[in-house]
């Protein structure tokens, strides 16, 4: 079995030991209708409407989509067509909270008797891939006719530096993960359910081993702490030896991968009837005074999170959704917490400024460290030469943008940026 490469990163799991604290209800939340891959949800409320926690405010906009629920009780202030930060067309609903956090009527535990009801519940819960991808979970859990599913992987790798929200889910919500696993083994006839956790989370591994005990076919797998262990294809290969084919899905090799927090959110919905309206977020980075894990209503401006964590240093210069390897730099701190936001990191200017790029010396470190076996330097050259056929030859489409190439590049080339642009060039 070939060993997949990657990067040895500083872990910086500073918040692994701090149990999440609940954020006081924010005064205002802005909830985007597109926090998932697929069609945006369609608003079902209007400005001026009163809403309660867990009330549907956006219905799924298509087959691949997810419903959106209010995370606060209060009054809809406006429905905006444009994202105020990016100027792009993206509908969002702004709600003024009344601070009461009154639950929506009719929220009650779900009784699940068959696979269909389970899938309906997942669909109604509004849960999407919480590891970061945001793919609607109900779509992922729909096993198409003829697929031979025999293994479900619970992804607790959490290989990005800083982020510990999945770690905390495994420690604090182990019970929910157990409920989730029982549901999965009831409705999916699989041979094994594997829980993959990187070995830098001993406490989480302990909890997972506790819940796995006595559950048939459930197994905890310790994995080396080598980024990008949690990348879907990497995880599947390292745990099962199976290779997801180019352009294919994990289901093509009989596997479904679910993030551990995603599974816990499904279990919470079935147990309480409260859909996905809040999220545990790791707030860390060199510009955050008191790093913490915070449970925040979805739509909370990230500035509220920073305030709750002692504020930002005056030289804060970069704010990310997610980890430093694959996270997205956001233009302003009024951006909201999304369903799939697992961390909000802020960095001081000295850490945010990357060293200047120099000429590629063709050392080959990008290719040698790519888990997929891609040659980033060649892809970058193809992109700079605007040669589509070379981009295809070097398989730019198979890149998962984990960033190991750019991390290891001695010339500090912006390889991932070139790859993203190369993909866009191929799309036309």
């Amino acid at each position: 079995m070939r060993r997949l490469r990657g990067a040895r990163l500083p872990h910086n799991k500073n918040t692994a030991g701090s149990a999440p604290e609940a954020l006081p209800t924010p005064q205002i939340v802005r909830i985007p209708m597109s926090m998932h891959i697929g069609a945006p949800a369609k608003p079902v409320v209007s400005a001026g409407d009163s809403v309660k926690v867990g009330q549907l405010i956006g219905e799924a906009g298509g087959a691949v989509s997810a419903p959106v629920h209010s995370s606060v009780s209060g009054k809809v202030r406006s429905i905006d067509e444009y994202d105020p930060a990016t100027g792009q067309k993206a509908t969002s609903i702004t709600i003024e909270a009344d601070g009461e956090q009154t639950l929506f009527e009719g929220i009650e535990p779900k009784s699940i008797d068959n696979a269909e009801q389970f899938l309906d519940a997942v669909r109604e819960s509004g849960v999407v891939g919480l590891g970061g991808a945001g793919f609607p979970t109900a779509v992922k859990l729909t096993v198409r006719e003829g697929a031979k599913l025999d293994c479900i992987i619970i992804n607790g790798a959490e290989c990005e530096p800083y982020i510990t929200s999945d770690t905390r889910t495994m420690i604090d919500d182990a019970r929910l993960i157990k409920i989730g696993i029982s549901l999965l083994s009831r409705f999916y006839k699989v041979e094994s359910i594997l829980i993959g956790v990187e070995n830098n989370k001993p406490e989480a591994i302990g909890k997972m081993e506790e819940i796995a005990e006595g559950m048939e076919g459930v197994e905890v797998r310790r994995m080396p702490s080598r980024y990008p262990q949690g990348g879907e294809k990497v995880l599947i290969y390292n745990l099962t030896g199976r290779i997801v084919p180019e352009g294919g899905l994990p289901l093509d090799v009989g596997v479904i991968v679910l993030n551990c927090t995603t599974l816990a959110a499904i279990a919470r919905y079935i147990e309480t009837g409260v859909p996905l309206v809040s999220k545990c977020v790791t707030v860390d980075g060199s510009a955050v005074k008191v790093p913490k894990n915070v449970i925040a209503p979805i739509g909370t401006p990230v500035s509220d999170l920073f305030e709750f964590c002692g504020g930002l240093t005056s030289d804060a210069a970069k704010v990310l959704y997610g980890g430093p390897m694959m996270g997205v730099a956001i233009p302003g701190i009024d951006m909201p917490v999304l369903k799939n936001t697992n961390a909000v990191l802020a960095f001081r200017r000295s850490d945010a400024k990357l060293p200047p790029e120099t000429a590629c010396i063709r050392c080959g470190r990008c290719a040698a460290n790519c888990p997929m076996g891609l040659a980033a330097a060649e892809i970058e050259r193809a992109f700079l030469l605007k040669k589509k056929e070379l981009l295809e030859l070097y398989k730019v489409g198979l890149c998962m943008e984990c960033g190991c190439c750019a991390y290891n590049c001695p010339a500090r080339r912006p390889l991932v940026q070139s790859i993203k642009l190369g993909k866009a060039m191929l799309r036309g």
Partner: protein
Amino acid sequence: MSDRNGNLIVTASPHIKGGASTNRIMLDVLIALVPAFAASIYIFGPRSALVVCVCAAACVLSEFVFEKALKRPVTVGDFSACVTGVLLGFNLPVTIPLWQAVFGSAVAIILVKQLFGGLGKNFANPAITARIIMLLAFSVTMTNWTLPDGVTGATPLTMLAKGADGLPGLKDMLLGLHGGSLGETCSAALMLGGVYLIARRVISWHTPVVFIAVVFALTAALGQDPVYHILSGGVMLGAFFMATDYVTTPMTWPGKIIFGAGAGILTAVFRVYGNYPEGVSFAILFMNILTPYTNRLTIRKVLGEKEKEK
């Protein structure tokens, strides 16, 4: 808080970078060359240091002047020109007239490197190519071999080619106490530097090991003394320091093996059948030219890659 909104830095991921840098790599190469440099001074005297320093200074200056003249960013701080200069100096006889050394340095940096776009863009190894041009242009001074005892004489390779007697012993071969280019004779020091580069993961073992092994095997098969062949001439210097140049050699490990094997075969063939007693530079230049094709031929299979439908 709102005043900060417009000032956040937005870049593509990743947002952190590892510690590797081009100048650290070049510095490692320079460190790896120190033992052979010290040996050359011991063997050939202080003029050896003079020649190497003149080459290094001339290379750095050529790069500086060229980049200034073309209003390009000055990149002498990455030490790559310095590496080229030291390697070129190592490839010259200690008696080389200094103006010729300067000429060679300018050829290496301006003609071979900068005219093709600078660092990372040249297809041929600057030091090797400059050495070949000097060998053709100044064939007398470039083959004026001084022995450690100060008299002029033949290199072990010349002796091997002519079947002459008086080959130095194995110990002298390892320590470099024989005629040759000033930096290439001390095999032990070069190997020490090579091991350092492999240990620091600056280079991989593939090219040098295959290169040396092929020269050994092929010269033995052709009825020559293989030990003398790998310990003399430019094999050690070429295998560890020139055939591992990132820019002009393949990126993939199968490509590196092809490069090492090809350079090894050509070296042996040029030495045994060619007019010149030495063939390492020609072999490496030859393989440099093939490098883009070797790279293309040895693209790594991507995880999950579909076989091409025909």
